[in-house]
């Protein structure tokens, strides 16, 4: 049964951040505008603002990640929050504790915010639903759930695109690679279509494109040379090691031949096209080194903007009212 969007308050402010799907356009723009104010914090001598002083942010990582966890940790610390990092797969669940029990225990330790990464699609929604029932002032931020969503990555990608391209209204964006398993692709697609991007293309072999993908508002291409033609933005996705050889792909080399980003392929895009990648990169599998380090790549700025975007999201959900304090 469909219910109200669980990440919004009744007056449509940000309560949790679970997915970019269904976020109002004005709210996404508000997040990006708030992030813009935080970008300069990183340039200061004292890289801190007091918005979350006295709040406890729990980084709950049921799946290993160094990079995302670190950027959330930096973002929380710059907002003056106390940060507790928990790698759960190494502790509780191996003892048979359920996800909901783990959350209840951490709520009893007076957590104010959970940043959650989990291998199961929908895990963040489950936690948000539970939190709403038992401790409504606790916020949940999805840091990646299965194949479903990675909304802060989607938003930092939007920030990056807006930074370089100013507007979404005449853009062509190509997302290339393993769309099937990619929460980054899904979060990017929903954010782009919401922001009014008229031309979102996904490019990959049929084994890595989800069924009825077009229904998400994208066009599907299997020929990268044609798919990338005239694009303003090329978003490359990471190909997981375990998928490089098996029933989905014969080899990393063959994948690179068709879908790796090379100078030759990039030449089909617009001359001022930007190249993005959520990291960590597999050089020579998704992307040629010269491109990754080239003048069109904005991969490192993505990381910097990511901290500001996460600060914006945390400050908004942490304010309790769903607005920047």
């Amino acid at each position, binding site marked *: 049964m469909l219910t109200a969007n669980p990440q919004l308050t009744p007056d449509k402010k940000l309560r949790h951040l679970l997915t970019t799907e269904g976020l109002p356009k004005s709210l996404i723009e508000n997040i990006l505008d708030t992030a813009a104010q935080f970008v300069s914090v990183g340039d200061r001598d004292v890289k801190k603002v007091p918005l979350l002083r006295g709040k406890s942010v729990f980084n709950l990582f049921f799946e290993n990640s160094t990079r995302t966890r670190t950027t959330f940790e930096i973002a929380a610390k710059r907002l003056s929050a106390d940060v507790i990092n928990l790698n759960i797969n190494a502790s509780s669940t191996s003892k048979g504790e359920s996800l909901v029990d783990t959350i209840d225990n951490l709520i009893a330790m007076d957590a104010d915010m959970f940043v959650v990464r989990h291998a199961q*699609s929908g895990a963040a929604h489950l936690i948000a639903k539970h939190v709403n029932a038992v401790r409504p002032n606790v916020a949940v931020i999805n840091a990646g*759930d299965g194949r479903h969503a990675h909304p802060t990555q989607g938003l930092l990608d939007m920030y990056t695109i807006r930074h370089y391209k100013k507007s979404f209204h005449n853009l062509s964006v190509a997302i290339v690679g393993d769309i099937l398993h990619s929460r980054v692709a899904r979060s990017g697609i929903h954010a782009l279509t919401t922001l009014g991007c008229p031309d979102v293309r996904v490019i990959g072999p049929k084994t890595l494109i989800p069924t009825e993908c077009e229904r*998400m508002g994208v066009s599907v291409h299997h020929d990268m040379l044609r798919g990338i033609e005239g694009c303003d933005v090329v978003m490359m996705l990471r190909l997981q090691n375990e998928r490089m050889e098996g029933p989905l792909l014969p080899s990393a080399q063959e994948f690179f031949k068709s879908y790796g980003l090379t100078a030759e392929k990039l030449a089909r895009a617009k001359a001022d096209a930007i190249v993005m990648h959520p990291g960590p990169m597999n050089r020579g599998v998704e992307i040629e080194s010269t491109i990754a380090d080239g003048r069109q790549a904005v991969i490192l700025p993505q990381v910097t903007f990511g901290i500001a975007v996460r600060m914006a999201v945390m400050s908004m959900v942490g304010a309790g009212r769903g607005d920047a304090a």
Partner: protein
Amino acid sequence: MKLEIRNGRLIDPSVGINGRDEHVNLYIEDTVVCSVGQEAPNGFVADKVIDAAGKIVAPGLVDLCARLREPGYEHKATLESELMAASAGGVTSLVCPPDTEPVLDEPGLVEMLKRRGWTLNQARIYPLGALTAGLKGETLAEMLELAEAGCIGFFQADRPIVDTSVLYRTMQYAATYGFTIWLRPEDAFLARGGIAHDGEVASRLGLAGIPSSAESVAIATIATLMRETGARVHLARLSSSAGVELVRRAKADGLPVTADVGIHHLLLTDRDIGYFDSQYRFSPPLRSPSDRDALSAGVIDGTINAICSDHTPTDEDEKNVPFGEATPGASGLEMLLPLTLKWAEHANVPLPTALARITVNAAEVLGKSQGRFVAGAPADVCIFDPRAFWAVTRETLVSQGKNTPYLAREMQGKVTHTICAGRLVYAG
């Protein structure tokens, strides 16, 4: 003991008697139907009279799949709780699958189950034995012994037979004795790791998909092996449009095949999963609206013989986990009747036809004589008020399984009396 049920609107779906405009009384003597008519048969003096004015008097429901969870899963439900739920739902005959712990692959377990059920004195229990030892899909179960202990057929439940040669041999062996094999058609490899229908919703939510072809490939394989072995097969829980079409063709070709569908699959689709609501996780998965419509058409034209509850009670902890970790299935015994009425209304199906699919047609799949009001037929009756509403809540559900997509929703159609073998087993 003589029982008279008077003033009700009697519906015998086997012959299409539809007492809309007249009161037809039902006269029961001991465990069987004595007669139907305006007047009591000669010398019939009722010991007890039930006034069914304003209600429908139908045969007791025959449910082709209800998990009672005993032995082994008593934390989810017990024989006692679920048989009471059956009575509350108007179900007087039910088929229980062998996916208990231990599985029903030994005659002693089947005898114990039948004995336990008999002492509780409610719905008739028809156990399905395991098709393969331990349901492992490797070696044959002792079908002859199990049949002698009371199994009405042999089922692999939701466990796959990965090795097609094992499937072939089970069909050959069952055909030797004329036993019916029950199979839930799903190719183990195509379904592997999947948790939702492979379509728009699963793609959007990032849930691993189970394609419709998992069902159609399995049915094509089964139909081919039926031709070779002569085995009789009941296909349990169809879920896809392609599956319905293959069954339609198999029947047209004269194969001895029957089929059922779970009631939820006639009403719900993958769209209902919403934001990962685990109450909507089913095996097989809820599919697209066009699949649901094809299933509905299949029930109407008789390609699908019967509708069942696919009753799967679980405890709340098993649903309060991420969607992909949730136990599939829903509690259903008490919703089978009202949901079938709801489907009939939506699909514009005459009431006797809809009732036939949960009574006489289901009994025919089992080769049993329930579901008819003729002299000498088993006196199994379900009396219900078609206009009464009731709320589905943790408290109103008799089943120990409170897992249902319909929690906190209203149902129309309430059972008021259930009579099994001439005995009143429920009065609500």
